[in-house]
C-alpha cells in the first residue's frame, strides 16, 4: 500500500499527519523565520498580541511566540526520544520474555506488571524531586523507564501467538539462532503495531513532561511547553487576564497529542479491518 492509499483510506490519518507535520515544521523553521530569544526579557511587560509579537509578551517582557517555537521543539524532541526508548525497552522485555518463556519470562513479566502498577506521576515526582539540576536527558530517562510496562505486555502476548506459526518452525529448521529468529523473523510482523504504539508513546511522553514541568520538576535549563505552563502558573497569568499567555501553550500541547492519537486511530483503521467502519 502506498502512502497515498494509506492517507486516502483514513481521513483521521490524513488530518492527524497534517497537524503533526505542521508543528514539526513550526518547531524546525520557526526560529529561523522568527529570530527572537525566548528567554531575554527585552520587551514591554504583558503586551497584547501585535505584528511585532504575534502572541504578545509575558510579565517579564519575553516574547511568547518565540517561547512557543522553542517550547514546541523541545517538547517534540523529549517526546520522540522518550517514546523510542520506551519502545526499545518494551520490545526487548516483551519479546525476549514471550519468545524464550520459562523463568526468564516469569521475571520479565513480573517486572512489566510492576511498572504497569506503579503510579507513574507520583513515581516521577518522587524521583525528580531529588535531582536539583535536571537535564532533558534525565527527564527522558525517567519518563521512558516508567512507561514501558504496557508495551512489554502486549508485545509479549503477540510474540506468544506468533511463535507457534509455521514460518518460525521453518526458521528453526534452517538453523539460525533464537535471538535472530526473534528479532528478524518474529518482530518484523509487528511493525505496524510498533508504529501505532510509537504515536501513542510520543503523545504520552509529551503529556508526562508537561505534567512534571507544570509542578516545577521538569528540565531545569530548557524552554519546553510544560515549562511555559509552569511560568503561567507561577506568575499567575490568569489573574492579569493575560489570555494570550496561557491559551496558545495548552492548545499546542492538546493539538500535538490529539494529532498523534488520530494517527494511531487512523493506522488502526488501515491495518485492522474490524475497526475500519469506525
Amino acid at each position, binding site marked *: 500500500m502506498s502512502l497515498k492509499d494509506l492517507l486516502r483510506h483514513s481521513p483521521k490519518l490524513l488530518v492527524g499527519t497534517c497537524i503533526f507535520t505542521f508543528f514539526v515544521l513550526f518547531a524546525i523553521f520557526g526560529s529561523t523565520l522568527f529570530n527572537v530569544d525566548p528567554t531575554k526579557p527585552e520587551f514591554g511587560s504583558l503586551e497584547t498580541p501585535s505584528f511585532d509579537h504575534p502572541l504578545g509578551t509575558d510579565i517579564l517582557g519575553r516574547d511568547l511566540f518565540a517561547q512557543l517555537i522553542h517550547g514546541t521543539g523541545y517538547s517534540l524532541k523529549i517526546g520522540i526520544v522518550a517514546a523510542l526508548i520506551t519502545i526499545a525497552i518494551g520490545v526487548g522485555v516483551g519479546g525476549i520474555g514471550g519468545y524464550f518463556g520459562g523463568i526468564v519470562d516469569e521475571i520479565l513479566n513480573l517486572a512489566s506488571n510492576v511498572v504497569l502498577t506503579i503510579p507513574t506521576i507520583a513515581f516521577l515526582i518522587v524521583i525528580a524531586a531529588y535531582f536539583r539540576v535536571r537535564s532533558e536527558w534525565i527527564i527522558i530517562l525517567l519518563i521512558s523507564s516508567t512507561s514501558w510496562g504496557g508495551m512489554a505486555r502486549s508485545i509479549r*502476548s503477540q510474540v506468544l501467538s506468533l511463535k507457534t506459526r509455521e514460518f518460525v518452525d521453518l526458521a528453526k529448521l534452517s538453523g539460525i539462532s533464537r535471538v535472530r529468529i526473534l528479532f528478524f523473523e518474529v518482530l518484523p510482523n509487528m511493525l505496524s503495531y510498533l508504529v501505532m504504539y510509537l504515536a501513542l508513546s510520543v503523545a504520552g511522553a509529551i503529556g508526562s513532561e508537561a505534567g512534571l514541568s507544570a509542578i516545577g520538576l521538569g528540565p531545569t535549563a530548557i524552554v519546553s511547553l510544560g515549562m511555559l505552563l509552569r511560568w503561567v502558573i507561577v506568575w499567575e497569568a490568569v489573574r492579569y*487576564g493575560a489570555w494570550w499567555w496561557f491559551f496558545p501553550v495548552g492548545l499546542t500541547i492538546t493539538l500535538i497529542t490529539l494529532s498523534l492519537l488520530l494517527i494511531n486511530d487512523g493506522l488502526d483503521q488501515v491495518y485492522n479491518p*474490524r475497526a475500519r467502519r469506525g
Partner: protein
Amino acid sequence: MTAKTPSFPHFFRRKIIVYVVTFYLALTLIWIIPHMMPGDPVREKALKIIAAGSKGGTVPGSGLTEVQVKRLYEYWVKKFGLDQPLEVQYLIFLKNCFTLDLGVSIRFHPSQVNDLLFRSLPWSLGLLTPAIIVGWILGNYMGALAAYKRSIFDKVLYPLFLFMSQMPYYWFALILVYSLSFHVRIFPAAGAYTQTLTPSLSITFLLDLLNHYFLPFVSVMIPYIGGEAIGMRSLILYEINSDYANYFESLGFRDRKLLSYTFRNAVLPQVTGLPIYFASAFGGQLVTEVVFGYPGIGGTLYAAVIGQDYPLIQGGFLMIVIVTLLGNFVMDLFYAYIDPRIRVAYRGEK
C-alpha cells in the same frame, strides 16, 4: 494454542505477588534514591537547618527558631536512625512505613506528616469521587450515543471528545478560572471555602462550599467525560460490527433489543476501568488542586515539592501508591467476577 484456563486462586496469587513486589520496590526506591544522590539530601537538609540555626536567629524560609531546629534534627536522627549503619536505617524506614509513621514535616513543622495527609484526604476524595462518577455516566452515555447515531452527530462529537480527553487538565482549569472567575465573576477563583467563615453545617457555609466546589469539580469531570466517551464509542462500534450483532440484525429483531445487548457487553471494560482511573486521578490531579488552591492531597504534595519537604513527599507518595494498589485490586476483583473472558486474556494466552 495452550488452552490453560487459570483457576481463581492461581489468578489472585499471581496478582498478589505483583502487588507485594510493587509495594516493596516503591518503598525501597524512596529510601534508596536520597542515599544515591551526592550528599544524601535528607541528611544534608537537616544539617543545613542546623548550620543556619546555630548562627543564631531563625532559619531563612523555614520560620523555625534555633531550639526548634535542634529538636527537629535530634528527632530525625532518632526517627530514621541516621547515626546507625545503613541496613539498620533501611529496616527502621520499612518499619516506619508499615506502621504509617512518617515523622514530622519540615515545611509545616511541627505537624506530623500523617496528620497533614489525613487532613487533606477527605478534600481530595470529596472532589474526585462525585466528579468521576458523574463524568463516567455522562461520558459513557455520550460515547454510546455517538456510536449508535453515527452520521453528522458523531462527526461533531468525536473530535470534541478527543479534544476534551487530550487537553492538559490543569490548562482547562486555568481557562475555567479565567472565564468564569476572572472575566465574569461568577465563581471564586481559589480555596475550598471563604476563609472568614468558620466551617459548620450552616446553610451559609454549605452554599459557600458548593460555590467553591463547582469549578474544580467541572475541571476534573470534563476531561474524564472525553476519555470515557472515546472508549465507549469504539467499544460499541466493535460490538455493532461483531458476528452476533450481525446475526441478530439479520433475524430482524428490533434495534432496541440489539442496543441493550451491545451496550451490556461494551460497558464491561468501562466498569472495570473505573477503579484504576480513580487511582490514577488521585495521583494525577495534583495541579488542579494547585490552580484552585484546593486543600487536598495534590495541594499538600505540591507544597512539599516546592519546599523540598522530603518526609511529606515520601508520605504523599506512599499514600498514592496505596490508593493505586487498592484501585488495581478492586479492578482485579471486577475482572475476575464479572468477565471471565478478560481473566483469560489478561494472562496473555490465546
